[in-house]
């Protein structure tokens, strides 16, 4: 068996690994770069041809022997290829590491081909793409099996089996079915994981016979069938016995195995069970295994430049040298205006010391958090955010105090002190700010964007617990405006439960025993009554409000059912826990009774209006239960002139972000394909440069630092994000009118000036930079187009009956 002995083994030849290995080579350290795929930078190789690779964050300097600047994919790869040769990097391709054991200075790395590499330390840079899940049946290694599809048009007249039922499998199968005979194999009886658009497309293709599908079936074995028309035979286990399919090719799209298992097998520790948790690392990227360094996307740094810098730094640290991190100057500048007069390390230590929330956070994570945040030292009285703003960042007070003004007129004032945090309400619920925050004397706050704090919450259990608890306490405080003490509320909170519901799941049913109240923390719910043998929606309840209040006033039965419109979280509070509060506060009982009376009256109003109820149900089915602002078109007014689309394109670089004709309608209310500015935007989930943000007025918009990776386009369930390059500016109106120069207003813009122009994600920003409101609405000649928030759905529905 082949063995090899080096000082540094670098695993994974992505940007992080390449940079680490090149630096080791420069330093003359015996090293070996191991890469599973047949070439370097597999992740970047998989980008679309000609994709513009962007070098975000712009302010971060590059620290690597290899070049990297914004360029097309091919140029970036070539640059690295040349760099590998120039720096004489010792690299082995097709060398997948399957196990790592030992610790400094004795590591053994087992490769898939059976060989072993011995190393004193290891830099692990395998990224987060993971390995494709294998079929796990005999014959899975035959040449006909593949786990990826680069170009569907490359295949013709083949018999192809696609295994899997997710979006990737469906998209591949549909694309291949244009020129090939394609058969899908789905383990379940339906496609429950697919996006709406893919779901309807695949069902239709199966209906129309352009695609066949085995449901409730799994692969049993694959054999080569020599001499047959099709080279291979796949045997399936179906629920009616074995079936056999002759084929040329099998494409398995079973998802990827996240690298976490591999890391845990190597001994690397994780803070908690959340799938999004990052490995525990020191501020020198060293994992809980001494001598095992984790860098790049795997360490939670999703951009190329960061990955390259860390590869370099990890090699330095492994030699016992303390390099100043490349982002040090950025922090130094950020801390300069602060009144502490401390070094970067000193300021970071001060933050950790003063903010109990961060006590358990390791130095690397804290540094990363601060890097992703802004530090403000506002003058006393400065407004940090206003009540009803839609911002969702999270604040921690490092110095001085902050006053929160709550209540309808800001009558309730709460003083927050150094070390406390605020802003968690909008962060978790996606709703408007419940109050205004004003800086006190000597105030220094850290404003952390939503993504950074969520990352921290999923990595450090203690942070999640504390934030959750305070959320509940403050939610009770603001929902019921009680004057109960913090400790009293804390006991109520201790008895509260956090519940998660899938879309369409019932919180409780009419007639059931009512024993608790639900505070809707995120998502939204619909209240339903049984009328004439069917469910009729009587109201919509958004996050930040409560339902089931009747449950707190003695044991009764539910007068209505409540159903989650979208994925929803609630905090349920038991009657028993609330009794204390009620006993002390007569006004509170009255307030709750008032709410009940109002709701009953609203229910009564909706009774005769089944169509109104149906319209609300329809809107909820369109996912509008998580919307904050949605474009609705009145079909009895719309003349189909598409001036709304033209206005959008004209004011947004030539690409309309709305598709008026597409989308369903009900009772003459049409929901066009257009962003609804979700409370908890799915598009934000996986944006490497954190380019998607929410403006104070609620607009979810994409900033210029978008790197065009397309994650948001995939993650938005409503299909409203497009990847587009800006088109050239049009001639002024008069020039077109009088001289006929260029495309006219509303006409189709020319192709992008530069066909190589970088494509970035574009979506509706509600014309936040134009003033005067959304251009689509302002351009509608008939008044058919409006944008409204879901709170007005009931009002909208009322008009639809009569």
């Amino acid at each position, binding site marked *: 068996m082949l063995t090899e002995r080096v000082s540094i083994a670098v695993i994974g030849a992505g940007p992080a690994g390449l940079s680490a290995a090149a630096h080791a080579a420069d330093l003359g350290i015996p090293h070996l770069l191991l890469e599973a795929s047949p070439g370097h930078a597999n992740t970047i190789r998989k980008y679309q041809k000609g994709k513009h690779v962007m070098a975000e964050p712009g302010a971060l300097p590059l620290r690597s022997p290899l070049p990297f600047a914004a360029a097309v994919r091919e140029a970036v790869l070539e640059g690295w290829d040349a760099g590998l040769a120039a720096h004489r990097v010792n690299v082995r391709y097709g060398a997948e590491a399957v196990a790592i054991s030992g610790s400094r200075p004795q590591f053994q790395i087992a490769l898939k081909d059976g060989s072993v590499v011995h190393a004193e330390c290891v830099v692990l840079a395998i990224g987060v793409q993971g390995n494709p899940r294998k079929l796990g049946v005999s014959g899975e290694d035959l040449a006909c099996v593949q786990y990826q599809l680069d170009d569907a048009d490359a295949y013709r007249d083949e018999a192809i089996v696609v295994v899997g039922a997710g979006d990737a499998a469906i998209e591949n199968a549909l694309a291949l079915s244009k020129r090939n005979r394609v058969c899908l194999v789905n383990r379940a009886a339906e496609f429950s994981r697919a996006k709406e658009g893919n779901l309807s497309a695949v069902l239709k293709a199966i209906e129309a016979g352009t695609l066949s599908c085995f449901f409730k079936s799994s692969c049993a074995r694959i054999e080569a069938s020599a001499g047959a028309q099709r080279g291979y035979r796949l045997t399936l286990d179906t629920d009616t016995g074995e079936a056999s399919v002759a084929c040329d090719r099998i494409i398995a799209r079973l998802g990827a195995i996240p690298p976490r298992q591999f890391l845990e097998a190597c001994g690397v520790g994780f803070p908690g069970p959340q799938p999004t948790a990052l490995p525990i690392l020191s501020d020198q990227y060293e994992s809980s295994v001494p001598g095992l360094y984790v860098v790049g996307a795997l360490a939670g740094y999703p951009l190329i430049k960061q990955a390259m810098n860390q590869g370099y730094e990890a090699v330095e640290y492994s030699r016992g040298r303390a390099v100043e991190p490349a982002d040090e100057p950025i922090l130094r500048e950020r801390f300069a205006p602060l009144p502490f007069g401390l070094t970067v390390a000193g300021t970071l230590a001060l933050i950790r010391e003063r903010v109990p929330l961060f006590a358990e956070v390791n130095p690397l994570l804290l540094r990363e958090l601060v890097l992703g945040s802004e530090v403000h030292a506002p003058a006393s009285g400065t407004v940090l955010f206003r009540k009803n703003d839609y911002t969702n960042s999270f604040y921690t007070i490092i110095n001085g105090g902050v006053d929160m003004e709550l209540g309808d007129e800001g009558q309730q004032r709460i003083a927050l002190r150094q070390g406390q945090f605020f802003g968690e309400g909008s962060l978790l619920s996606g709703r408007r700010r419940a109050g205004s925050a004003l800086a006190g004397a000597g105030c220094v706050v850290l404003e952390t964007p939503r993504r950074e704090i969520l990352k921290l919450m999923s990595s450090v259990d203690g942070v999640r617990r504390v934030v959750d608890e305070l959320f509940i306490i403050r939610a009770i405080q603001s929902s019921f405006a009680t004057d109960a003490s913090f400790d009293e509320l804390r006991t109520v909170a201790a008895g509260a439960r956090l519940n998660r519901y899938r879309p369409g799941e019932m919180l409780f049913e009419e007639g059931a025993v009512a024993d608790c109240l639900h505070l809707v923390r995120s998502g939204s719910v619909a209240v339903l009554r049984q009328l004439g043998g069917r469910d009729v929606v009587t109201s919509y309840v958004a996050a930040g409000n409560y339902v089931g209040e009747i449950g707190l006033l003695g044991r009764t039965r539910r007068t209505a059912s409540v159903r989650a419109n979208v994925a929803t979280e609630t905090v349920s509070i038991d009657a028993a826990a609330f009794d204390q509060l009620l006993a002390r506060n007569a006004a509170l009982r009255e307030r709750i009774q008032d709410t009940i009376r109002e709701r009953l009256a609203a229910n009564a109003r909706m009774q005769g209006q089944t169509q109104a109820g149906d319209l609300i149900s329809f809107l909820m089915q369109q996912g509008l239960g998580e919307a904050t602002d949605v474009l609705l078109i009145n*079909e*009895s007014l719309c003349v189909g002139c598409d001036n709304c689309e033209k206005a959008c394109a004209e004011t947004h670089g030539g690409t309309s972000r709305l598709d008026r004709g597409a989308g*369903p309608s009900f009772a003459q209310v049409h929901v066009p394909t257009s962003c609804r500015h979700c409370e908890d935007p799915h598009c934000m989930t996986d944006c490497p440069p954190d380019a998607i943000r929410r403006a104070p007025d609620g607009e979810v918009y994409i900033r210029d630092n978008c790197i065009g990776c397309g994650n948001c386009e995939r993650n938005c369930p409503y299909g409203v994000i497009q990847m587009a390059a800006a088109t050239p500016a049009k001639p002024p109106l008069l020039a077109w009118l009088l001289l006929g120069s260029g495309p006219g207003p509303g006409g189709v813009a020319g192709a992008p000036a530069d066909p190589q122009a970088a494509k970035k994600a574009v979506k509706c920003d509600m014309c936040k930079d134009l003033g005067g409101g959304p251009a689509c609405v302002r351009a509608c000649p*008939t008044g058919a187009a409006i944008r409204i928030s879901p709170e007005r759905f009931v009002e909208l529905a*009322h008009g*639809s009956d009569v």
Partner: protein
Amino acid sequence: MAAMSSIHESALAYRGRRYLWVALALTAASVLAYAWHSPAVPPNGGTWLGYTLGTVAALLILLLLALGIRKRSYHSTLGTVSGWVSAHVYLGLALVVVATLHTGFHFGRNVHTLAYVLMCLVIALGIVGVVLYARYPARMSVNRQGRARAQLVEEVNDLNARALRVAQPLPAEFLAAVRSARDRLVLGGNAWTLLTGRDRSRVVLPGSDGASAPLANPFQATLIAWLGDRLARCQDGEVAPRIQSLLTLISAQRVAIERLKRDLAFQARLDAWLYLHVPLSFALLAALLAHVVSVFLYW
């Protein structure tokens, strides 16, 4: 169903119909002034009131024309286009009164009367437009049954694909007939076809004599008749049910084509009147200029 929702405000209802009131006030003022005014000569465009009314009318026309510019100034925050249309409609109607009083009821075969006639034509077309805008959208919506136009097209094509599959095992002539109906299906067409909602599809049916002239096949009627005929004469217990389901599919397709054609016809008519309204307004602008220039030359 009633026009829905108090939240949506139609252009005509814009801001409590404020421009209706403006237009009524303007009309009333013009009529009163005309009645009160007793010039030495019979009323005409040359008296001071004539000049005033003429100026107001010309300005109104320019304002009405400006809608075309505002509609395309997508960055503009000068009101909303819906508000502009509201003003356009009501002030455009008031223009009839103002301009007519301006003429003092003097008409002749000259450029002045040409301008007046063109104006009336444009206004008449405007009224047609308002009526179409008020009626068609709701009818289109009912016709589409909550679906998008693209889905209507898809439905037609889908039914085609399914019919082809059902025809596959049948004697070859069936496949040939269905295929030919598909190949010669015409969903679009020229402006006239669209406006009238006619279906100019054709089909080549395998004739008894082997001759193959394309026949008109509006809404699949010819194919349906042919299939019905084959079904009536079919003796084979295996084949008959297949022909039956083919017939069902093609009949469903007929309904889908009718629906799509209706939708296209509605849309074509909604668009068509503007194609007359706008060029005629430019003609009006030209005639108006000629009118004004010639009046000043006379002077």
